[in-house]
């Protein structure tokens, strides 16, 4: 995989590319994430046709607090790629990638449900696992493990 093709194209939009445990992680700026994912999906060199997984991570008390992590896979080249985007607590919004992969639908709804991340452009951004009237986002670090009472 020639990652320079990607860094050349997106330049300053990509903060870092690291390889640890034989896994490549690309950290990207929020505003280029959809063009970047589209490029990784459609470019012959990467051909990441699978969105394997999408999830959030809460790094409280760090700032920026949240990361959205995309795991991509290419059937053609049989390689994996991880794309990470950092989001501030005050503005936990990122563009939805449902237009690229239909399978992103439930992943994004789950992430909204459990972390409170807003996926802009998602056709039906509602809670998925928890009841619609639930208050709070349980996978946030400041949500207690025990003792939570629904108002």
């Amino acid at each position, binding site marked *: 995989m020639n990652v320079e093709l990607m860094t050349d194209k997106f330049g300053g939009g990509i903060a870092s590319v690291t390889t640890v*445990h034989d896994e490549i992680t690309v950290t990207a700026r929020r505003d280029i994430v959809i063009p970047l994912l589209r490029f990784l999906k459609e470019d012959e060199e990467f051909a990441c046709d699978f969105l394997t997984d999408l999830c959030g991570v809460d790094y409280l008390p760090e700032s920026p607090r949240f990361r959205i992590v995309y795991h991509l896979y290419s*059937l053609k080249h049989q390689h*994996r790629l*991880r794309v990470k985007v950092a989001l501030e607590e005050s503005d936990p919004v990122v563009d939805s990638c449902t237009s690229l*992969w239909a399978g992103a639908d439930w992943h994004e709804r789950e992430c909204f449900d459990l972390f409170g991340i807003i996926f802009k452009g998602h056709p039906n951004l509602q809670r998925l696992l928890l009841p619609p009237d639930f208050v709070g986002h*349980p996978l946030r670090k400041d949500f207690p*493990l025990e003792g939570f009472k629904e108002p």
Partner: protein
Amino acid sequence: MNERTMKINLGPHHPSTHGVLRVVLELDGETVVDAHPDIGFLHRGIEKLAEHRSYHQFIVLSDRLDYLAAMSNNLAYVTTIEKLMEIDIPRRARYIRVALAELQRIASHLFWLGTHAHDLGAMTPLFYMLREREAVMDIFESLTGSRLTPSFMRIGGLAADIDGDFIGAVKSFTDTFADRVGEYETLLTANPIWKSRTKGVGVLDAEACINLGVTGPMLRSAGIDWDIRKSHPYSSYEEFHFEIPTGKTGDVYDRYLVRIGEMRQSAKIIRQVVEGLPAGPWLARDARTVFPEKKELNTNIAALIRHFGLVMEGFQVPPGEVYHSIESPRGELGFYVVSDGGAKPLRVKVRPPSFVNLQGLVRMIRGKLLSDAVAVIGAIDIVLAEVDR
């Protein structure tokens, strides 16, 4: 919603939804106009719990994700942590893990086929399949003490070595199993009722599968021979000979044929494991994660302290993140684990195959008959505990 259509609930308590899945169906007569799956009834917050448990303690929770394939969950989780900590696993332990994972695949597929056929009106196959599944459960019970939730794998190897009965029991199971699969096929493969209920029903072609992220037998039934055991071998799968059964059309019937083929291949792998099982240790000698031997505790104070530390605090994992996946009976089962250097994970994300595969449901049943919806739900082979976590 218009005057002609009617909304009904399929589930959450309905035998054909295989757990607590609710699907709101909009029907025009018997035709499904639209469907809205509703999940989450079995959400237990396992990913939240993982952040408050030591790395060892999560093994028990991983059993509860997909209770029909607990060994596969154990394997996926421990191999992820081993990758993160770069622990080398003894060859004997890797072989036994493969045997257990493949026995689990057979048990899971048998249970799937029995209940799926039962949904479609074939009562008899269920009894035959539970008979063979019982043999696998007996093997698990005598080895691990538990049938459904064995928690048998450890970070670094296994909880115990296999005992004297194991090899004999596994051999006698695999000796007869190929014939038994032949028996199932005489009941179903050419059965006109079975074919009319499954052929051309619930088609999901390769392109749709990839777009949705669908993996496992569903993807292979659409003609793509992608299996993680072949493309990214783990736990020494590269040392065994087996084929990947694939289908053509991606309908319910092809999924049945793929899973039948997989059961035969699994039996072949298990046979190779027990015939070539190497001698040696079944647990890595890695002082970070592995408990000292019992006899050491009586004589060695350092071992006793280490034992105490592992129980009370767990062990620390170097900071980092890792994604690792295996081929579970239902598809790609992955774990994404983030460590901040402490004794508890910062984040554990499960990538459950059932969750992703279930998203294809609406696409498969829209415009089809209500009775097809039952066939399609069965053919996805969902376990709701894994979907909801």
